[in-house]
């Protein structure tokens, strides 16, 4: 049970990073279906830089740099993808769904190419990522559940909380939400719609990209797998599941992580039942989507102009 929860948390934080990034993007009115591709690129950039750093330093790698350098690389690599997305949708004003899907194809290709240059094993780097408090082991189940994780896990929760704070308590958050709800009004109020959309998408993509890195380094212990895009689609689902609230997503992501891996921990199921089990996160998402739209409460709706390109002369 304990190992199930620990795995659920580690996988959950992958979803959390992915969905927090996507939430920031969506709050600005961008439905970025390129998130799966962005997460692939984030993971690949991070792993590539880690590989490079460790091969340069030999045996004596600095444990702090060995974590921060790949994290920075993953963030920057994914933010560049976000920049590409914003350029297409804000500056060139083309359709967001189409751009996002192309971005996913492109991102999967880029990450596969990067990984073909490094190989699939990052176990050594993963040790740095999973390094945690040394006293965690002495605290029994409590320590293992809450304190045994690596840096990125805590960073994920911190980012989610920070995002919630920025959304609800700061002027930037207010402006951002205005841009996503009604860009024309925001524009009239003197908010630079394009700048907000660019910034939110780049930062959001950067955070999503960290999710990809977290998946490889923290959850899979450094064994590359070509399924990050599937994780990315679930991260998009999680955004809906948690009704655009990163604070709820902290718990929601662990639920998602649990649902995703439940089949390997519950005994007595056949192989085919496992496949049905993997459907659960999607079904749950649809139910939440239906439920929020039926209740039609003002608080739990998608940003009003989600997916709609803003052009000042067209209102």
């Amino acid at each position, binding site marked *: 049970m304990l190992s199930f929860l620990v795995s659920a948390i580690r996988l959950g934080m992958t979803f959390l990073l992915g969905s927090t990034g996507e939430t920031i993007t969506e709050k600005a009115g961008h*439905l970025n*279906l390129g998130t799966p591709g962005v997460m692939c690129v984030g993971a690949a950039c991070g792993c590539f830089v880690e590989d490079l750093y460790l091969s340069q330093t030999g045996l004596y790698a600095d444990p702090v740099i060995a974590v921060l350098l790949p994290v920075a690389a993953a963030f920057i690599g994914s933010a560049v993808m976000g920049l*590409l997305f914003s350029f*297409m949708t804000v*500056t*060139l*004003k*083309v*359709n967001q*769904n*189409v*751009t996002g*899907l*192309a*971005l*996913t*194809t*492109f*991102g*999967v*290709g*880029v*990450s*596969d*190419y990067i990984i*073909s240059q490094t190989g699939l094993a990052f176990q050594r780097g993963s040790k740095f990522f999973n390094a945690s408090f040394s006293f965690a082991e002495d605290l029994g189940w409590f320590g293992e559940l809450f304190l045994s994780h690596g840096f990125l896990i805590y960073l994920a929760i911190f980012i989610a909380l920070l995002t919630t704070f920025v959304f609800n308590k700061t002027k930037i958050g207010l402006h951002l939400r205005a841009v996503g709800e009604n860009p024309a009004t925001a524009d009239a109020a*003197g*908010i*630079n719609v394009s700048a907000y959309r660019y910034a939110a998408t780049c930062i959001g993509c950067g955070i999503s990209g960290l999710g990809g890195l977290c998946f490889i380094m923290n959850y899979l212990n450094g064994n590359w797998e070509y399924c990050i895009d599937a994780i990315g*689609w679930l991260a*998009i*689902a999680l955004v*809906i599941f948690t009704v655009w609230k990163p604070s709820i997503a902290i718990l929601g992501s662990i639920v998602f992580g649990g649902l995703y891996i439940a089949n390997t921990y519950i005994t007595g199921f056949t*192989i*085919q*039942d496992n*496949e*049905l089990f*993997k*459907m659960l996160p*999607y*079904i749950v*998402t*649809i139910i939440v*989507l*239906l439920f929020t*739209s*039926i209740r*039609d409460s003002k608080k739990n709706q*998608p940003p009003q102009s*989600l*997916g709609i390109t803003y*052009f000042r*002369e*067209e209102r």
Partner: protein
Amino acid sequence: MAREKKVHNPLFHVVKREPLPFLPALGIRAAAVVAALIVSALVITVLSQQNPLEVYKSMFEGSFGSSVRIWNLALNLAMLLCVSLVVTPAFKMKFWNIGAEGQVLISGLATVACMFFLGDQFAFLGDKKPYVLIPIMLGASILAGILWAVLPAIAKALWNTNETLFTLMMNYIAIQLVAYFLKKYVKSGSGVLEPMPQHGLPVIGDMDYLLSILIVLALTVIVYVYLKHSKQGYEISVVGESVNTAKYIGINVKKVIIRTLAISGAIAGVAGFLLVGGINHTISTTTVGGRGFTAIMVSWLAKFNPLTMIITSFLIVFMERGAEQISSDFNVDPSISDILTGIILFFIIGCEFFLQYKIVFNKNRKEEV
């Protein structure tokens, strides 16, 4: 925000332009394709140190190098076109159905189930077997497609549920269902179902896929006529332009949404039926192979015109196939084909900007300030 009284006068501004005549529009698109080709050749040249001209040659040969390749190109084009027809009526209505992948896959599952369970049951019919089995396959396939497409439509019509996200989720449910049934019914446990060509579509002459290709062509024309020249097609475009206008002139918007998605689902049924019954004779989770997503770009680039979609799907199939050929000819990692496809798509999508907007430079900039 800006409190100083400074008049901001940018170097240029963007205005919407009138729809371009056919030829200039074609010119802009051609320029985008050429630019995409130049950039992709550059990428390949950097990664593999090959002569760019060789790259183009390889790309062309990937699609037209032999009769088998031309045949494959035609087949892939037809299937991509067919899946694009699935999303087109809904898109015209601004209903963002990104679930074609799942809708086609679940139809394929229904088809393959009929072949698997009923195929041998009807053996006693002898020569007449196809006359009974094939209509059953097609019917089951269409029903499955309609079910998968109509659920999000009903939710959209009744509660305004976000259709993009709903249809996206339905894809994965379809994929998992296919994985489940493969694990359950394939006796070897490998999850790979042996092809069953004996229960498939009949073959015209000795050309395996010709019938499927012809069906897709006919379907394209039907959808074109339906969207362009029928009352229902007109209602779809009115709803797409403005829901309020549609309500005002007495169109039952909910009915149109559900009806259009039922039609989409039926087309998905035909697509799944052809993919499984006519071409693969089996199913796997990758039978649709991402066409459901590529179709969105095909349809959007063609401005939802089924006849133009023949050209756009040719363009995308040709580029994808060329990219694959490049990666195998020059010994570059196969992932390069995804990268090239991505680059090419960005260019083709990006050029839409120049079709819809024009950049006006502000000449008397200094004087106004």
